[in-house]
């Protein structure tokens, strides 16, 4: 893990449900959080790979 604060990336393959939003809110609390939406347009996978390698942890939701 880099630094004191965990860096977490939330990736969405579809529009998040209320349950997913709630879980993400808890997981992101007091952390350095980022997100990437795969369901909008043509995703830039180079940027996504950069983000994945820049974060400590990635969660990819349905």
């Amino acid at each position: 893990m880099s630094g004191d604060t965990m860096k977490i990336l939330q990736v969405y393959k579809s529009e998040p449900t209320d349950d997913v939003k709630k879980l993400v809110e808890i997981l992101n609390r007091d952390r350095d959080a980022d997100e990437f939406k795969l369901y909008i347009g043509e995703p830039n996978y180079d940027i996504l790979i950069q983000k994945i390698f820049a974060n400590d942890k990635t969660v990819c939701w349905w």
Partner: protein
Amino acid sequence: MAADPNKFGIFVTSPQHMRHILGLTRAAVHAGKKVMIFFTFKSVHLTKNPDFYTLTQLCDLEDVAICADSYICEGFDNVNDVPRGLTDKQMRTQAFHGAILDECAKYIVM
């Protein structure tokens, strides 16, 4: 074994995201990373997608595997119908997923 900082793991559990799997693999290889991929359950249907062979060519042979039990459960023949790009040795168990978690510094579920 400590995770390799240059290895990226993809655990494929859905049968409908080949575009993302291929896009991520191409981008990871372009960034100088090695990619390990395991297909399980209904995602083994993606082995019938024309892009599957392309995907296998981006990875080392031993780094792509499918769950043999899943393949058989879905009605495919694991002896006479090994997907193009794989060998019968790449028909594996869930232990391959465990190896991805151990060996890859970064990981995503598709």
